[in-house]
């Protein structure tokens, strides 16, 4: 099983080889409510850890999605533009946002693992 890490801004990141997939957690998707629009980054965009990478909108709120680690965007989930509801239906699967090539894999170690994130969510 691949390793998934979490941020305190409720993004998840899954590393597979050199590439990592990024999305928002089930907890975030539930608290946002029905997602109506997703703005994805341009492929090739370089992002810094914690930098704004995408935007997710519900009817009454717009939230920035931050890059969990630094790197370059290599692919985006264009299906979300037509079907933003995928973020609610399967946030940690088909509702992924973008894939990126990491500039420094060691940054991943600063993020939470599943157990730590579950504890973090409980504390909110």
């Amino acid at each position: 099983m691949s390793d998934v890490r979490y941020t305190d801004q409720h993004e998840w990141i899954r590393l597979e080889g050199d590439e990592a997939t990024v999305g928002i957690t089930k907890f975030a998707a539930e608290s946002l409510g029905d997602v109506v629009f997703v703005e994805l980054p341009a492929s090739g965009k370089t992002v810094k850890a914690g930098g704004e990478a995408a935007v997710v909108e519900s009817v009454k709120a717009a939230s920035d999605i931050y890059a969990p680690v630094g790197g370059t965007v290599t692919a985006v989930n264009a299906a979300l533009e037509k079907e933003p509801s995928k973020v609610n239906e399967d946030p940690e699967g088909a509702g992924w946002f973008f894939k990126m090539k990491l500039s420094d894999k060691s940054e991943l170690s600063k993020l939470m693992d599943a157990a730590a994130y579950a504890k973090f969510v409980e504390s909110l």
Partner: protein
Amino acid sequence: MSMNNQGRPSSAGEAFPASIATISGDRGLDHEEALIFELGHGACGVDLPDVKISDTRLGGVRRKGAIGLPGLSEPEVIRHYVRLSRKNYAIDSGLYPLGSCTMKHNPRLNEKMARLPGFGDLHPLAPQSTTQGALELISQLMTWLTGLTGMPAVAMSPKAGAHGELCGLLAIRAAIAARGEDRKRILVPESAHGTNPATAAFAGFTVDEVPAKPNGHVDAGALKAKLGPDVAAIMLTNPNTCGLFEGEIIEIAEAVHAAGGYFYCDGANFNAIAGKVRPGDLGIDAMHINLHKTFSTPHGGGGPGAGPVVLSARLAAYAPIPLLVADGKGLKLIEDLAAAPNGAKPFGRMCAFHGQMGMFTRALTYMLSHGRDGVRQASEDAVLSANYILASLKDVMSAPFGDGPCMHEALFDDSFLEGTGVTTLDFAKAMIDEGYHPMTMYFPLVVHGAMLIEPTESESKHSLDRFIHVLHTLATEARAKKTVRFAGAPHLAPRRRLDETAAARKPVLRWKPDPLKEAAE
């Protein structure tokens, strides 16, 4: 004795079962109404001759296709819009407690005066010798606005509150540039109206948020700590959006000035203090005045408004064109940047022509009607009514800052609904079934599940008591977990809750002809 020989029934009849659909789809006075585009049938609501013209002077761009507008006669158009109007709540039909929006009575004399041909049918570029009465009206309104605020100058052209904010910030920008400085940061409390940070960004500044204290006031200490040589201004609403007067405002103004910055005050809540407190005595440099709030020009379903900006002596020189000046022959508009009188350095122009004259006429009519004593009484009554609501409801609803008095609006949060399954939204929607417009919800952002109630000075005590009774009962029922009134409310309005998610996911923003029907025709 005479008998009922017409056979007229004398009893009220059986109740109509709610489950039976009507044949027409209408329900008594509640009519379903199609779009105007679905009602057109080639009729026309005006009588105009069919004049033939040649194409020789049309530059080769004469329209080729039809526009696609529907054709209806006058009675059909009138019925359509009258039917639509009946689906709206309005101040004239009930208490409208929208906090921060100030839904007060709109006197009809104001409407009548704005429609006098000398104002309503006056062209903005007519020779100035033929518009002296209009210029005099603007000048009188300026006297009222500067008199009530204790500020030396006012820019009249901004078209609404947010446009006034922009005007104020552009004046500040120009004043800073004139000092040869570069200041990019604007401090905005987190309780601010959304227009404040939006305007700051619009005017090319960066926004730095200042937290609120647990008592609902801005954290003056945090604010002072953020001051520095790159701070252009602070934008503060006073009374603030929690309905509280910022008591430390004079010290804040002094600290901002000492740090070389300017003090922009969002005047959206000026209606709480007009005739009681002069913003000029508080150290404010610029403040817009929403004529459609404080001075009762009608909201009209979302506008038009007007947002003149009063300016301190430090900013007065930078007011945008047009400027109104008196010369030997009367009043004159200065419409050219290069023709500004000595000392004036206008930063530019906010809009074509001279501002919202139609709103000026209404506002001046309102001010003359009230007089300074009436304006003061209106502020006092607005504050008194809000406090009466606060005092009457704080035993069952939760007032986060309810220990002291509020200004013109009473703020509640949703902690009294905790564990009931009823949300702020449900509570507000249940008010609709009771015949009331809901209060402002989920604003300000600094309390959870906010409910902001602004009764204004326009309600009688009887009306306030009835409103309090309804809210008190609703809150009591919610706390007792009697949730039947709340789940899925409203039930009795022209529409049930609307699917906003569907509207946003697949936006349908205009009517389009049905292609199948078109083809059949």
